[in-house]
């Protein structure tokens, strides 16, 4: 069921170094979010994407700037990959007025609509039909845009997944479904609750959609696969599905120590860190270790400054609680 796999040129050293740096920014941001949570400066919950950077950064590198992206509560990496700054993300997590959503959203709802990153949704699977709708809209408006929904392995078992994929296929819409299969839905192995081995790719045939599995920790492989599927979709050949196998470094959320994961498994995946994979490729392209380290240092500095700026930012004005319900800006529901 796999679409024609035309060769996609790998990124050159300069581009790959840029992708590496983007991933490093995500990594440092997630580490900062984790630390800030533990120190009490981030309330509620966080679902960190450390370990899954290559999916967001690789996919993003394959998209046009005006393509639409929909993500989940584990969506910091997607917001960052689509142009949100660490400062506006961390400010949101820290309940600051300068947060991406003015502190009305929080960690689970990072959104940067001006960059066509149309939101992070916290009801599993709910955004898949939305992405289908955005793709439908793009087709109706004739803009050549595509829409991409990122979701977890666990989301493949919910009804909205099924309805979204069928409608996308029937209407031949330019939408990509990118599953970040990190092997777990919260604390339960996905294999325990799913009838097939590759929860997304093995279902694609049920919708006549080409499905591929890719190493989600290899930014180059992800970029290549998304480039191919996006090309198909943009050409009017309909939706595509990519299952990116990856792993989260932290627990599911907050302070979850993820004790349910076998030590051997964790170790194996930590050895296959997306940053290391990219570093290996950079070495192969002849980029000196010092340049990679420098990229990492720039990322660390950026995030460090972002943390400080976010800390210094003011809390939202309480009056903001009663704005933004309606398009007129207010919340009036009665005379």
């Amino acid at each position, binding site marked *: 069921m796999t679409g024609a796999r035309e060769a996609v040129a790998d990124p050159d050293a300069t581009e790959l170094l840029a992708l590496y740096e983007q991933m490093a920014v995500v990594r440092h941001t997630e580490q900062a979010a984790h630390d800030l949570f533990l120190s009490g400066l981030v309330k509620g919950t966080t679902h960190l994407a450390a370990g899954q950077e290559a999916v967001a950064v690789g996919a993003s590198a394959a998209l046009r700037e005006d393509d*639409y992206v929909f993500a989940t509560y584990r969506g910091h990496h997607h917001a960052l990959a689509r142009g949100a700054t660490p400062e506006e993300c961390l400010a949101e997590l820290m309940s600051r007025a300068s947060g991406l959503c003015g*502190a009305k959203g929080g960690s689970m709802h990072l959104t940067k609509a001006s960059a066509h990153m149309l939101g992070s949704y916290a009801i599993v699977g709910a955004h898949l039909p939305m992405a289908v709708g955005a793709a439908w809209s793009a087709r109706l408006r004739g803009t050549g845009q595509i829409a991409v929904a990122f979701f977890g392995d666990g989301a493949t078992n919910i009804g909205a997944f099924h*309805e979204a994929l069928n409608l996308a296929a029937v209407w031949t819409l330019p939408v990509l479904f990118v599953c970040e299969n990190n092997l777990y839905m919260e604390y339960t192995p996905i294999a325990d609750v799913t009838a097939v081995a590759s929860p997304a790719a093995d279902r694609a045939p049920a919708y006549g959609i080409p499905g591929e599995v890719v190493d989600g920790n290899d930014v180059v492989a992800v970029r290549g696969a998304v480039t191919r599927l996006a090309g198909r979709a943009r050409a009017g050949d309909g939706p595509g599905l990519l299952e990116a196998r990856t792993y989260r470094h932290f627990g599911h959320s907050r302070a979850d120590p993820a004790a349910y994961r076998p030590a051997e498994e964790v170790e194996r995946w930590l050895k296959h860190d997306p940053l290391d994979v990219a570093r290996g490729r950079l070495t192969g392209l002849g980029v000196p270790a010092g340049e990679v380290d420098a990229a990492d240092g720039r990322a660390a500095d950026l995030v460090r400054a972002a943390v400080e700026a976010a800390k210094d930012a003011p809390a939202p004005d309480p009056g903001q609680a009663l704005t933004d319900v309606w398009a007129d800006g207010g919340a009036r529901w009665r005379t």
Partner: protein
Amino acid sequence: MADVTTYRQAVAEGLAREMRRDPAVVCLGEDIGAAGGVFKTTAGLYEEFGPRRVWDTPISEQAIVGAAMGAAMTGMRPVAEIMFADFLACCWDYLANEIPKVRYMTGGQVTVPLVVRTANGGGLGFGAQHSQAAENWALTVPGLKIAAPATPADVTGMMAAAVRSDDPVVFFEHKALFAAKGPPAPPGHVVELGEAAVVREGDDVTLVALAATVPVALAAAERLAGEGIGCEVIDLRCLVPLDAMTVLGSLAKTSRLVTVEENPYQGGWGGTLVSIVADEGFGLLDAPVRRVAAACVPLPFADALEREVVPTADKVVTTVRDLSTY
């Protein structure tokens, strides 16, 4: 223009007018295309606007409303049909958690100008899963506008307002009214959402009704007039925005309130309205407030049973008569 039309035709007319006006308006739903919808409320649209504007869907309520949401966020003005209001339950996540919250939770970054149309209410003998008045479900969710017209002209005029609204609107079309006749909406007719209509004036008791209970309240008022009791009948037309001021204004005159609701008493819209009145209008009241609402049971199939359960003119008459002696 014909000088009489049906509520059913007024739906299609309302949609057609907006589709002619604005190319961003597109319709989607089950069997709404060549078939014209199971209630024929989209009749003629496919013929006039073609398959690029009128889309038949699979039986996938989540995909229908979810896709409408995605399209609305990206420049279109979709009108999604959910065939029966009961089926809103199959895509409730979109109505409860996604559509009404996304603007707020993104700090105002996105706008969701869509309409979800649905056939609401009982009276046709469709049984428990196809007859509910579900407007009160939507009332539990801040961020949805809720329209429920009672006449053909209001259908067309409120549809114009709903489609033009930059806010999401749930548009309840009442099954028992589809065959009802009335004057058509004049060209360009727009009935702003949130304005109740005083459809009969009276001095003794205020009856507040919505959609199919408007004719019930009017019939009761007519009979009560014969007994010397003057009822003012208010058609709320919308639950959100809720025009509480028109109700309070009427109570300043009548001092007595009866709501006529098709939704069940428990959790019904009358509760919200009455609580506003019991607070802001307490000083106006000369008598207890009564709610003639559906009994707290599912809708039974047989007419003989359904009559027991839903508001009827008889029940309104009895309630008002009783109240006017308080």
